[in-house]
């Protein structure tokens, strides 16, 4: 008996493999806002990485001679009440914001991923209990959580990260769980079961990679949220502590007290927060559009 006669002509399908550059350009055209977001994110990352190259001022050293100077040639964004160059602190603040934001987002989203997939896969009593815990954590006010963490572990960046991560985990677990539940019903998981694969293999090879979309979406939105949360916590005095250059911290105290006479002290760090979060949100939105099959047209 002969094998099937004709082998399918695949020439036009080969054209699907488009060079990366073209694909990128298409993405920019399709997602101009997302591209703008990516641009902001890149600028911010560069600023964070090369902070000490970009600016020659020391972000923490006081300069008695030049306190509260309005923006001018030497200090593009002016100085604060300790004579510290605000631009420098904004740039170094990007470092704080990024390191906290990225770490917290990564930990939160990954924790949620693990919890969510496990919860969906094992179901039953395990699912029930995790869901109740998730309920409690989601309803629990962040500020209490942050305060407890900061007060018991002491303030400092890593504890701020913990405080921010905790509320992220249930949020992500919810989303991932519902995707994972849906994926459990998709035929390729059935196919994997029909092929006699173990539970571990099905979870790791067939389910986890397919909840990457919600995971990545959560991850990218979490970065922005984490930066914002860090700013709020620092502003409330429960986050990063002086003299670490952090945007939320820069809005505290003098920034408000001398609002009218030295508005630059509060304007620039606030703009920095807004732009950073804006960038990450734009980026996250574009990510959602690209990754979320509901939005994809095909």
């Amino acid at each position: 008996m002969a094998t099937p006669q004709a082998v399918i002509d695949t020439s036009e399908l080969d054209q699907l493999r488009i060079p990366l550059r073209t694909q990128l350009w298409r993405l920019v055209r399709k997602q101009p806002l997302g591209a703008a977001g990516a641009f902001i994110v890149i600028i911010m990352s560069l600023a964070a990485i090369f902070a000490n190259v970009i600016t020659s001022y020391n972000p923490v050293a006081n300069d008695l001679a030049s306190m509260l100077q309005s923006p001018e040639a030497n200090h593009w964004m002016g100085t604060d009440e300790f004579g510290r160059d605000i631009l420098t602190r904004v740039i170094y603040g990007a470092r704080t914001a990024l390191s906290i934001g990225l770490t917290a987002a990564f930990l939160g989203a990954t924790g949620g991923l693990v919890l969510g997939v496990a919860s969906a896969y094992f179901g039953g009593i395990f699912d029930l209990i995790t869901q109740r815990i998730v309920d409690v954590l989601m309803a629990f006010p962040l500020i209490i959580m942050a305060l407890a963490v900061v007060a018991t572990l002491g303030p400092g960046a890593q504890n701020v990260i913990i405080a921010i991560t905790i509320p992220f985990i249930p949020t992500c677990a919810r989303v991932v769980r519902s995707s994972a539940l849906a994926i459990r019903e998709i035929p390729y998981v059935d196919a994997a079961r029909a092929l006699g694969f173990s539970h571990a293999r099905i979870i790791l090879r067939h389910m986890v990679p397919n909840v990457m979309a919600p995971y990545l979406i959560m991850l990218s939105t979490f970065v922005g949220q984490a930066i914002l949360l860090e700013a709020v916590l620092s502003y409330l005095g429960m986050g990063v502590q002086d003299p670490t250059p952090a945007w939320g911290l820069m809005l505290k105290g003098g920034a408000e007290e001398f609002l009218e006479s030295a508005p630059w002290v509060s304007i620039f760090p606030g703009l920095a927060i807004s732009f950073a979060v804006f960038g990450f949100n734009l980026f996250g939105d574009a990510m959602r559009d690209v990754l979320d099959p509901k939005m994809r047209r095909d």
Partner: protein
Amino acid sequence: MSAQIRESRDKSVGKGETLLEVRNLKKYFAVTEGVVRRRAIGNVKAVDGVSFTIARGEILGLVGESGCGKTTTGRCILQLETPTSGEIVFEGVNLEKLDQKAMVAWRQKIQVIFQDPYSSLNPRMKVGEILGEPMRVHRVEPNAAKRRQRIAELLTVCGLPAKFADRYPHEMSGGQRQRVGIARALCLNPDFIICDEAVSALDVSIQAQVINLLEDLREEFNLTYLFIAHDLSVVHHLCNRVAVMYLGRMVELAESDELFDNPMHPYTQALLSAVPVPDPTVEAQRSHQVPKGEVPSPINPPSGCVFHPRCPLAVDSCRAQVPEFRELKPGHWVACPRV
């Protein structure tokens, strides 16, 4: 292949050794309602006492309207669902009695091809991985180089260029994906394949390609199919025997030609007349007696014969008594007392 050869082969199969036997299979689902918090409102009798056998090498067609339990039957055989009751005997061994290890071995003998070529392949895996993974896990082909060669063979057998091993599913058309699905079903050298609407989602021209492929593979690998479909023309074309299901029950089972030439159950008759034939001249001559009404819900199926509310022959007793599934002619089983 000439028509004669096919026909003689048709005669020979079905008489051979029994590969699979399904005895009085039942599968009830607890149905829940409410989007926010679900609650049980009753049972769906998705499959309600279905029995049949499949001989090695034959193609059994399973037809019926949407929701009548075809897929569920298939999934029970695959052990993707645990049957509520009933037995599934494969090569003389009752599956319920299998231990974990034997189960894994058994899994390799029976495979499935799904309807939807889009969702039945893991989008994150390349075709090569999709096909290679089972061979690696079950140590069918532990050697990586040989495995690659085997993947290439499988792809060629299924009518795809070997270089498709490097493709992701989304880089392929529906027909091509379905071929990958078929290749995956073949990669563990199974004896038995359940095709659940394996061609329904494909366009006419592509569908014909895949039907031919399935036929050829059966020849080459001596496969047995349970071919689930709702398109009667396809079933007619492909299957040796055909079983007709209605609301979880089997209403008629016969050799293909017998069933299509001489349908006995009123539901089968209606079903056949509802299917249009692509020929206006033939159509002009056919009687178009379409059953009235709609398929009732399997949650509250009608009493007695489930078809009686739509049946032109129904009498009072049909309401009360569940009809017996009896063999009216050799090999022709019908669940209707009125024929």
